[in-house]
């Protein structure tokens, strides 16, 4: 199980290759890339900011929750911060399990949970200036560590 916050490009091919093993059965991945358009406006680039110490702790929480809920054998989550250009990978999730169902579900769960509890923020830069994207106010009661 690996979860990391990085400031350098995420090399998904290398990560997938390193993940291969005959005993896996199934792997499922999610790659989140910066879009060149948002809410009808052209986007030039994004800035991701984080509260790193807490974000790393919360990523670990995502991993342990996913392990508890689904029969998975491995899970990797990498989130990049800093300035990202269009098309660059911001987040990458890789799940291994014996069967496909758990792999799909754990992958979906992980990205959804990141958006709920991991303190990372994105600022979108476009032709009309910059704006902080606010996806979800944190629901304090539902997001404590178990």
């Amino acid at each position: 199980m690996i979860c990391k916050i990085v400031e350098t490009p995420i090399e998904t091919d290398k990560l997938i290759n390193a993940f291969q093993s005959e005993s896996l059965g199934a792997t499922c991945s999610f790659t989140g890339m910066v879009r060149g358009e948002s809410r009808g406006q052209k986007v030039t680039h994004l800035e991701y900011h984080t509260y790193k110490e807490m974000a790393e702790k919360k990523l670990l929480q995502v991993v342990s929750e996913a392990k508890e809920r689904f029969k998975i054998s491995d899970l990797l989550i990498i989130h990049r911060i800093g300035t990202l250009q269009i098309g660059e990978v911001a987040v990458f999730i890789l799940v291994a399990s014996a069967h496909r169902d758990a792999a799909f579900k754990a992958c979906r769960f992980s990205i959804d949970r990141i958006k709920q509890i991991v303190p990372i923020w994105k600022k979108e830069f476009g032709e009309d200036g910059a704006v902080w994207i606010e996806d979800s106010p944190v629901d304090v009661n539902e997001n404590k560590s178990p």
Partner: protein
Amino acid sequence: MLIKVKCFAWALEVTGAEEIQIEIKDSAKVSDLRECLSQKYPQFSGRMESIAVSINQEFAGEGSAISASDEIALIPPISGGI
């Protein structure tokens, strides 16, 4: 007591600093911190409710107690991933 509060995203733009110091009553709770912040930074007005507060890297409810040695942070709505 004097406490330190970390600020992120637009909360950082409001306070102008990654970490601020605030004088707050002893045995203060998260709700007291909100009140102090709203007085010191009127720009939080109307947006304070959307900010979560963390104590020692864990999200904290309104009634959670704050002590001077705690690591406290303001967490505006998050937007990780894509």
